[in-house]
Protein backbone atom coordinates (compact mmCIF):
# COMPACT_ATOMS: atom_id res chain seq x y z
CA UNK A 1 0.00 0.00 0.00
CA UNK A 2 2.84 2.28 0.96
CA UNK A 3 4.74 1.39 -2.22
CA UNK A 4 1.63 2.11 -4.30
CA UNK A 5 1.17 5.44 -2.54
CA UNK A 6 4.80 6.48 -3.24
CA UNK A 7 4.46 5.44 -6.87
CA UNK A 8 1.29 7.47 -7.21
CA UNK A 9 3.01 10.51 -5.67
CA UNK A 10 5.97 10.06 -8.01
CA UNK A 11 3.68 9.78 -11.02
CA UNK A 12 1.59 12.77 -10.06
CA UNK A 13 4.81 14.75 -9.48
CA UNK A 14 6.06 13.75 -12.97
CA UNK A 15 2.68 14.64 -14.49
CA UNK A 16 2.71 17.97 -12.66
CA UNK A 17 6.24 18.70 -13.94
CA UNK A 18 5.18 17.85 -17.48
CA UNK A 19 2.17 20.09 -17.13
CA UNK A 20 4.34 22.99 -15.93
CA UNK A 21 6.80 22.55 -18.81
CA UNK A 22 4.02 22.28 -21.40
CA UNK A 23 2.27 25.37 -20.05
CA UNK A 24 5.56 27.29 -20.03
CA UNK A 25 6.26 26.27 -23.63
CA UNK A 26 2.76 27.24 -24.75
CA UNK A 27 3.08 30.67 -23.14
CA UNK A 28 6.56 31.35 -24.46
CA UNK A 29 6.21 29.97 -27.99
CA UNK A 30 4.14 32.85 -29.41
CA UNK A 31 6.57 35.45 -28.03
CA UNK A 32 9.52 33.59 -29.58
CA UNK A 33 7.62 33.33 -32.87
CA UNK A 34 6.85 37.06 -32.81
CA UNK A 35 10.50 37.95 -32.45
CA UNK A 36 11.51 37.03 -35.96
CA UNK A 37 14.26 38.91 -37.68
CA UNK A 38 13.41 41.26 -40.55
CA UNK A 39 16.00 41.67 -43.28
CA UNK A 40 15.96 45.15 -44.75
CA UNK A 41 17.52 45.63 -48.18
CA UNK A 42 19.38 48.38 -49.94
CA UNK A 43 16.80 48.73 -52.71
CA UNK A 44 13.21 47.78 -53.51
CA UNK A 45 13.92 44.28 -54.80
CA UNK A 46 14.81 40.86 -53.46
CA UNK A 47 18.12 40.85 -55.37
CA UNK A 48 19.44 43.95 -53.58
CA UNK A 49 21.76 43.09 -50.68
CA UNK A 50 20.53 42.94 -47.08
CA UNK A 51 22.01 45.93 -45.27
CA UNK A 52 20.73 45.39 -41.74
CA UNK A 53 18.33 43.34 -39.72
CA UNK A 54 15.92 44.28 -36.99
CA UNK A 55 13.63 42.43 -34.63
CA UNK A 56 10.05 42.21 -35.81
CA UNK A 57 8.94 43.90 -32.60
CA UNK A 58 11.07 46.98 -33.26
CA UNK A 59 9.13 50.16 -34.01
CA UNK A 60 9.63 51.15 -37.66
CA UNK A 61 8.63 54.30 -39.46
CA UNK A 62 7.30 53.83 -43.03
CA UNK A 63 8.77 56.40 -45.40
CA UNK A 64 8.08 55.46 -49.01
CA UNK A 65 6.22 52.88 -51.04
CA UNK A 66 7.52 51.64 -54.39
CA UNK A 67 5.71 48.76 -56.03
CA UNK A 68 5.28 46.17 -53.29
CA UNK A 69 8.25 47.38 -51.26
CA UNK A 70 8.24 49.76 -48.35
CA UNK A 71 11.17 51.90 -47.21
CA UNK A 72 11.34 51.72 -43.42
CA UNK A 73 13.41 53.55 -40.84
CA UNK A 74 14.21 52.57 -37.28
CA UNK A 75 15.47 56.07 -36.55
CA UNK A 76 19.08 55.23 -37.30
CA UNK A 77 19.03 53.38 -40.61
CA UNK A 78 16.72 52.88 -43.56
CA UNK A 79 16.00 49.80 -45.62
CA UNK A 80 13.43 48.22 -47.92
CA UNK A 81 11.06 45.41 -46.94
CA UNK A 82 8.21 43.78 -48.88
CA UNK A 83 4.90 45.10 -47.59
CA UNK A 84 3.70 41.53 -47.06
CA UNK A 85 6.54 40.97 -44.55
CA UNK A 86 5.87 44.05 -42.44
CA UNK A 87 4.72 42.60 -39.07
CA UNK A 88 1.68 43.72 -37.11
CA UNK A 89 3.91 44.80 -34.24
CA UNK A 90 6.06 47.18 -36.31
CA UNK A 91 4.17 50.29 -35.26
CA UNK A 92 2.19 51.03 -38.40
CA UNK A 93 -1.17 52.62 -37.68
CA UNK A 94 -4.43 51.09 -38.86
CA UNK A 95 -4.80 53.91 -41.42
CA UNK A 96 -1.32 53.20 -42.78
CA UNK A 97 -2.09 49.49 -43.11
CA UNK A 98 -5.33 50.31 -44.90
CA UNK A 99 -3.46 52.66 -47.23
CA UNK A 100 -0.83 50.04 -48.06
CA UNK A 101 -3.44 47.35 -48.68
CA UNK A 102 -5.34 49.69 -50.98
CA UNK A 103 -2.20 50.84 -52.79
CA UNK A 104 -1.14 47.28 -53.61
CA UNK A 105 -4.47 46.40 -55.17
CA UNK A 106 -4.25 46.60 -58.99
CA UNK A 107 -6.55 49.24 -60.45
CA UNK A 108 -9.30 48.86 -63.02
CA UNK A 109 -7.48 50.43 -65.95
CA UNK A 110 -5.11 48.34 -68.03
CA UNK A 111 -2.72 49.59 -70.70
CA UNK A 112 -0.87 47.39 -73.14
CA UNK A 113 1.75 47.63 -75.83
CA UNK A 114 3.70 45.30 -78.08
CA UNK A 115 4.36 44.32 -81.63
CA UNK A 116 3.12 41.71 -84.06
CA UNK A 117 4.32 39.56 -86.93
CA UNK A 118 3.06 42.12 -89.46
CA UNK A 119 5.86 44.37 -88.15
CA UNK A 120 3.30 46.62 -86.53
CA UNK A 121 3.16 48.31 -83.14
CA UNK A 122 0.13 47.64 -80.99
CA UNK A 123 -1.21 49.82 -78.19
CA UNK A 124 -4.34 49.28 -76.14
CA UNK A 125 -6.36 50.28 -73.12
CA UNK A 126 -9.18 48.48 -71.34
CA UNK A 127 -11.65 49.01 -68.51
CA UNK A 128 -14.01 46.51 -66.79
CA UNK A 129 -17.61 46.42 -67.97
CA UNK A 130 -19.65 43.86 -66.01
CA UNK A 131 -18.07 40.46 -66.72
CA UNK A 132 -16.23 41.78 -69.78
CA UNK A 133 -13.58 44.39 -70.37
CA UNK A 134 -14.19 47.21 -72.82
CA UNK A 135 -11.02 47.43 -74.89
CA UNK A 136 -9.69 49.90 -77.44
CA UNK A 137 -6.73 48.90 -79.61
CA UNK A 138 -4.54 50.74 -82.06
CA UNK A 139 -2.14 49.13 -84.51
CA UNK A 140 0.32 50.93 -86.76
CA UNK A 141 2.94 49.75 -89.21
CA UNK A 142 5.21 52.21 -90.89
CA UNK A 143 7.97 51.33 -93.32
CA UNK A 144 8.29 54.77 -94.80
CA UNK A 145 6.45 54.47 -98.08
CA UNK A 146 4.09 51.75 -96.85
CA UNK A 147 2.17 52.76 -93.76
CA UNK A 148 -1.14 51.47 -92.50
CA UNK A 149 -3.03 51.52 -89.25
CA UNK A 150 -6.15 50.23 -87.60
CA UNK A 151 -8.22 51.12 -84.54
CA UNK A 152 -10.72 48.79 -82.89
CA UNK A 153 -13.21 48.88 -80.06
CA UNK A 154 -14.50 45.64 -78.58
CA UNK A 155 -14.98 43.38 -75.61
CA UNK A 156 -12.50 41.10 -73.87
CA UNK A 157 -13.39 38.13 -71.72
CA UNK A 158 -11.46 35.55 -69.74
CA UNK A 159 -12.43 32.08 -71.01
CA UNK A 160 -10.41 29.82 -68.75
CA UNK A 161 -7.71 29.84 -66.12
CA UNK A 162 -5.05 27.28 -65.42
CA UNK A 163 -2.97 28.01 -62.33
CA UNK A 164 -1.64 31.53 -62.88
CA UNK A 165 -2.14 31.32 -66.65
CA UNK A 166 -5.35 32.34 -68.40
CA UNK A 167 -6.91 32.38 -71.84
CA UNK A 168 -8.70 35.52 -73.02
CA UNK A 169 -10.67 36.38 -76.10
CA UNK A 170 -11.49 39.63 -77.87
CA UNK A 171 -14.00 40.59 -80.56
CA UNK A 172 -14.35 44.07 -81.92
CA UNK A 173 -15.16 46.37 -84.77
CA UNK A 174 -12.93 49.09 -86.09
CA UNK A 175 -11.46 51.07 -88.89
CA UNK A 176 -8.46 50.28 -91.07
CA UNK A 177 -6.61 53.08 -92.78
CA UNK A 178 -4.35 52.49 -95.74
CA UNK A 179 -1.83 55.19 -96.61
CA UNK A 180 -0.60 55.73 -100.15
CA UNK A 181 1.70 52.91 -101.24
CA UNK A 182 0.67 50.36 -98.64
CA UNK A 183 -1.00 47.18 -99.86
CA UNK A 184 -2.31 46.09 -96.48
CA UNK A 185 -5.94 47.17 -96.78
CA UNK A 186 -5.87 47.79 -100.54
CA UNK A 187 -4.12 45.61 -103.13
CA UNK A 188 -3.53 48.56 -105.45
CA UNK A 189 -1.80 50.62 -102.76
CA UNK A 190 -4.39 53.37 -102.78
CA UNK A 191 -5.06 55.69 -99.86
CA UNK A 192 -8.29 54.31 -98.41
CA UNK A 193 -10.12 53.33 -95.25
CA UNK A 194 -12.33 50.38 -94.44
CA UNK A 195 -14.48 49.01 -91.64
CA UNK A 196 -13.07 45.81 -90.15
CA UNK A 197 -13.92 43.02 -87.76
CA UNK A 198 -11.24 41.57 -85.49
CA UNK A 199 -11.10 38.56 -83.19
CA UNK A 200 -8.15 37.53 -81.09
CA UNK A 201 -7.13 35.08 -78.38
CA UNK A 202 -4.51 35.80 -75.71
CA UNK A 203 -2.51 33.33 -73.68
CA UNK A 204 -1.68 35.32 -70.55
CA UNK A 205 1.43 34.71 -68.49
CA UNK A 206 1.74 36.83 -65.30
CA UNK A 207 5.20 38.35 -64.90
CA UNK A 208 4.48 40.43 -61.81
CA UNK A 209 1.40 41.27 -59.78
CA UNK A 210 0.47 44.12 -62.13
CA UNK A 211 2.24 43.07 -65.31
CA UNK A 212 1.59 40.19 -67.67
CA UNK A 213 2.91 39.04 -71.01
CA UNK A 214 0.47 37.87 -73.67
CA UNK A 215 0.89 35.78 -76.77
CA UNK A 216 -1.87 36.95 -79.09
CA UNK A 217 -3.26 35.24 -82.15
CA UNK A 218 -5.44 37.61 -84.11
CA UNK A 219 -7.41 37.77 -87.32
CA UNK A 220 -8.87 40.85 -89.00
CA UNK A 221 -11.36 40.88 -91.83
CA UNK A 222 -11.85 44.05 -93.87
CA UNK A 223 -15.53 44.68 -94.55
CA UNK A 224 -14.79 47.13 -97.38
CA UNK A 225 -11.95 48.01 -99.78
CA UNK A 226 -10.56 44.73 -101.13
CA UNK A 227 -12.12 42.72 -98.23
CA UNK A 228 -8.76 41.26 -97.35
CA UNK A 229 -8.16 39.17 -94.25
CA UNK A 230 -5.01 39.32 -92.14
CA UNK A 231 -3.72 37.08 -89.39
CA UNK A 232 -0.87 37.83 -87.04
CA UNK A 233 0.89 36.70 -83.90
CA UNK A 234 1.69 39.41 -81.35
CA UNK A 235 3.67 39.73 -78.14
CA UNK A 236 1.94 42.12 -75.75
CA UNK A 237 2.92 43.57 -72.34
CA UNK A 238 -0.16 44.40 -70.27
CA UNK A 239 -0.02 46.60 -67.16
CA UNK A 240 -2.72 47.14 -64.54
CA UNK A 241 -2.48 50.72 -63.34
Amino acid at each position, binding site marked *: MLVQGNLWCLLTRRVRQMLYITTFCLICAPSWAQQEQLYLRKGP*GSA*FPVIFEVSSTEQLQPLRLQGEWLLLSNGRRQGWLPVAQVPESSGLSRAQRWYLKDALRPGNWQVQGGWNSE*TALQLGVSYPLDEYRLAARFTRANA*GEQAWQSAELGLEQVFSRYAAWSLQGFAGLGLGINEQGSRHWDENGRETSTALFTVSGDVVWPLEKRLDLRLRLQASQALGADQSAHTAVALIWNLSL
Partner: protein
Amino acid sequence: MKYLILCLLAVPLLVNAETTDIYQPRIKVAGLEKSENISRRYGSWGVGVAQQAQDNLSSRTALNFTGRWFAGERWYLLGSAQFAPFNQSEIRNSSGQVLLESGEQANVLAGGAGYAFLQGAASLSGRTSYPWQVAVEGLMGEQYTGDSSGRYTGLAFSWQLLGDDYWLATEWRVYQSDDSRLDKLNVNKGMQWGISFGSYF
Protein backbone atom coordinates in the same frame (compact mmCIF):
# COMPACT_ATOMS: atom_id res chain seq x y z
CA MET B 1 -45.34 82.67 -1.06
CA LYS B 2 -46.16 84.41 -4.30
CA TYR B 3 -42.63 85.85 -4.49
CA LEU B 4 -41.09 82.51 -3.70
CA ILE B 5 -42.93 80.89 -6.61
CA LEU B 6 -41.83 83.72 -8.90
CA CYS B 7 -38.19 83.26 -7.81
CA LEU B 8 -38.34 79.53 -8.42
CA LEU B 9 -39.72 80.14 -11.90
CA ALA B 10 -37.03 82.69 -12.66
CA VAL B 11 -34.06 80.56 -11.50
CA PRO B 12 -33.89 78.37 -14.65
CA LEU B 13 -33.69 81.51 -16.76
CA LEU B 14 -30.59 82.62 -14.88
CA VAL B 15 -28.77 79.35 -15.32
CA ASN B 16 -26.65 79.35 -18.43
CA ALA B 17 -26.42 76.15 -20.40
CA GLU B 18 -22.90 74.78 -20.42
CA THR B 19 -21.40 74.61 -23.87
CA THR B 20 -19.86 71.25 -23.12
CA ASP B 21 -23.33 69.77 -23.04
CA ILE B 22 -23.85 70.55 -26.72
CA TYR B 23 -23.15 67.57 -28.93
CA GLN B 24 -20.30 68.48 -31.20
CA PRO B 25 -19.19 65.42 -33.18
CA ARG B 26 -15.61 65.35 -34.45
CA ILE B 27 -15.54 65.02 -38.20
CA LYS B 28 -13.46 62.03 -39.20
CA VAL B 29 -11.79 61.91 -42.60
CA ALA B 30 -10.73 58.65 -44.21
CA GLY B 31 -7.06 58.35 -45.10
CA LEU B 32 -3.74 59.16 -43.54
CA GLU B 33 -3.04 62.07 -41.27
CA LYS B 34 -0.16 64.29 -42.21
CA SER B 35 2.12 62.79 -39.58
CA GLU B 36 1.60 59.25 -40.89
CA ASN B 37 1.90 60.03 -44.57
CA ILE B 38 3.70 57.47 -46.75
CA SER B 39 4.98 58.88 -50.02
CA ARG B 40 4.49 56.72 -53.06
CA ARG B 41 6.87 56.35 -55.99
CA TYR B 42 5.39 55.33 -59.33
CA GLY B 43 8.26 55.82 -61.74
CA SER B 44 11.13 58.00 -62.85
CA TRP B 45 11.87 60.62 -65.47
CA GLY B 46 15.14 61.81 -66.88
CA VAL B 47 17.04 63.77 -69.44
CA GLY B 48 20.28 62.81 -71.10
CA VAL B 49 22.70 63.09 -73.95
CA ALA B 50 23.91 60.34 -76.23
CA GLN B 51 26.58 59.97 -78.86
CA GLN B 52 25.30 58.23 -81.96
CA ALA B 53 27.46 56.30 -84.38
CA GLN B 54 25.44 55.86 -87.55
CA ASP B 55 26.27 53.60 -90.46
CA ASN B 56 27.70 55.66 -93.35
CA LEU B 57 27.20 58.99 -91.56
CA SER B 58 29.32 61.00 -89.15
CA SER B 59 28.63 60.63 -85.44
CA ARG B 60 26.41 63.15 -83.69
CA THR B 61 24.99 64.09 -80.30
CA ALA B 62 21.38 63.40 -79.38
CA LEU B 63 19.22 64.83 -76.62
CA ASN B 64 16.80 62.41 -75.04
CA PHE B 65 14.02 62.38 -72.48
CA THR B 66 12.94 59.17 -70.76
CA GLY B 67 10.12 58.11 -68.50
CA ARG B 68 9.91 54.80 -66.67
CA TRP B 69 6.83 53.36 -64.95
CA PHE B 70 7.69 50.75 -62.31
CA ALA B 71 5.55 47.71 -63.13
CA GLY B 72 7.02 45.50 -60.42
CA GLU B 73 10.21 44.53 -58.68
CA ARG B 74 12.23 44.19 -61.88
CA TRP B 75 10.01 45.14 -64.79
CA TYR B 76 9.24 48.67 -65.92
CA LEU B 77 7.57 50.27 -68.89
CA LEU B 78 9.58 52.80 -70.77
CA GLY B 79 8.87 55.85 -72.91
CA SER B 80 11.53 57.78 -74.78
CA ALA B 81 11.75 60.87 -76.95
CA GLN B 82 15.01 61.62 -78.72
CA PHE B 83 16.08 64.59 -80.82
CA ALA B 84 19.23 64.51 -82.95
CA PRO B 85 20.66 65.99 -86.12
CA PHE B 86 20.81 63.33 -88.82
CA ASN B 87 23.22 64.47 -91.51
CA GLN B 88 25.24 67.54 -92.43
CA SER B 89 25.67 67.46 -96.20
CA GLU B 90 23.14 66.33 -98.76
CA ILE B 91 23.30 63.00 -100.54
CA ARG B 92 22.53 62.73 -104.25
CA ASN B 93 22.24 59.73 -106.52
CA SER B 94 24.20 59.28 -109.77
CA SER B 95 21.62 61.26 -111.75
CA GLY B 96 21.92 64.20 -109.35
CA GLN B 97 18.61 63.68 -107.58
CA VAL B 98 18.68 64.70 -103.91
CA LEU B 99 18.03 61.65 -101.72
CA LEU B 100 18.87 63.21 -98.38
CA GLU B 101 18.75 66.94 -97.88
CA SER B 102 21.40 68.67 -95.83
CA GLY B 103 20.75 69.21 -92.14
CA GLU B 104 17.89 66.76 -91.71
CA GLN B 105 16.74 66.03 -88.17
CA ALA B 106 16.01 62.54 -86.79
CA ASN B 107 13.46 62.51 -83.99
CA VAL B 108 12.36 59.33 -82.28
CA LEU B 109 9.29 58.57 -80.22
CA ALA B 110 9.44 55.10 -78.72
CA GLY B 111 8.04 52.96 -75.95
CA GLY B 112 8.96 49.59 -74.54
CA ALA B 113 9.77 47.53 -71.52
CA GLY B 114 12.82 47.09 -69.34
CA TYR B 115 13.91 44.24 -67.08
CA ALA B 116 16.52 44.70 -64.37
CA PHE B 117 18.47 41.44 -64.39
CA LEU B 118 21.24 42.52 -61.98
CA GLN B 119 20.81 44.49 -58.78
CA GLY B 120 23.35 45.43 -56.16
CA ALA B 121 24.92 48.17 -54.07
CA ALA B 122 27.95 50.29 -54.92
CA SER B 123 30.18 52.35 -52.68
CA LEU B 124 33.19 54.58 -53.24
CA SER B 125 33.99 55.59 -49.68
CA GLY B 126 32.88 52.46 -47.86
CA ARG B 127 30.59 54.60 -45.72
CA THR B 128 27.77 55.41 -48.11
CA SER B 129 26.46 53.00 -50.68
CA TYR B 130 23.92 53.35 -53.45
CA PRO B 131 21.72 50.69 -55.02
CA TRP B 132 22.28 50.04 -58.70
CA GLN B 133 20.78 47.83 -61.36
CA VAL B 134 21.57 46.70 -64.87
CA ALA B 135 18.58 46.43 -67.16
CA VAL B 136 17.92 45.28 -70.67
CA GLU B 137 15.43 47.45 -72.53
CA GLY B 138 13.44 46.86 -75.71
CA LEU B 139 12.12 49.87 -77.56
CA MET B 140 9.69 50.26 -80.46
CA GLY B 141 8.33 53.41 -81.98
CA GLU B 142 8.76 55.71 -84.92
CA GLN B 143 11.67 57.69 -86.23
CA TYR B 144 10.80 60.88 -88.10
CA THR B 145 13.64 61.84 -90.42
CA GLY B 146 13.10 64.92 -92.51
CA ASP B 147 9.86 64.33 -94.44
CA SER B 148 9.76 60.56 -94.03
CA SER B 149 9.23 58.22 -91.12
CA GLY B 150 9.57 54.56 -90.28
CA ARG B 151 9.28 52.06 -87.48
CA TYR B 152 12.09 52.32 -84.94
CA THR B 153 13.37 49.34 -82.94
CA GLY B 154 16.07 49.46 -80.32
CA LEU B 155 17.74 47.16 -77.83
CA ALA B 156 19.55 48.76 -74.92
CA PHE B 157 21.56 47.91 -71.83
CA SER B 158 21.33 50.42 -69.04
CA TRP B 159 23.32 50.70 -65.80
CA GLN B 160 21.35 52.75 -63.30
CA LEU B 161 22.65 54.19 -60.05
CA LEU B 162 19.61 54.81 -57.82
CA GLY B 163 19.90 57.64 -55.33
CA ASP B 164 17.21 58.55 -52.82
CA ASP B 165 15.90 61.46 -54.85
CA TYR B 166 17.91 61.31 -58.08
CA TRP B 167 19.26 58.66 -60.40
CA LEU B 168 22.09 58.49 -62.90
CA ALA B 169 22.34 56.05 -65.78
CA THR B 170 24.60 55.12 -68.62
CA GLU B 171 23.14 53.41 -71.63
CA TRP B 172 24.30 51.54 -74.70
CA ARG B 173 21.80 50.98 -77.49
CA VAL B 174 21.65 49.47 -80.96
CA TYR B 175 18.83 50.66 -83.17
CA GLN B 176 17.31 50.41 -86.59
CA SER B 177 14.74 52.38 -88.55
CA ASP B 178 12.57 50.72 -91.20
CA ASP B 179 12.19 53.94 -93.16
CA SER B 180 12.58 52.70 -96.76
CA ARG B 181 14.20 55.97 -97.85
CA LEU B 182 16.99 55.54 -95.29
CA ASP B 183 17.16 51.81 -95.93
CA LYS B 184 17.95 52.41 -99.62
CA LEU B 185 20.81 54.69 -98.61
CA ASN B 186 21.95 52.21 -95.97
CA VAL B 187 21.82 54.84 -93.24
CA ASN B 188 19.08 53.27 -91.15
CA LYS B 189 21.12 51.46 -88.48
CA GLY B 190 23.45 52.53 -85.72
CA MET B 191 24.40 52.45 -82.10
CA GLN B 192 24.58 55.00 -79.33
CA TRP B 193 25.92 55.38 -75.82
CA GLY B 194 24.93 58.07 -73.42
CA ILE B 195 24.38 59.33 -69.93
CA SER B 196 21.08 60.29 -68.31
CA PHE B 197 20.11 61.98 -65.10
CA GLY B 198 16.72 62.34 -63.49
CA SER B 199 14.39 62.10 -60.56
CA TYR B 200 11.28 60.22 -59.50
CA PHE B 201 7.56 60.85 -59.44
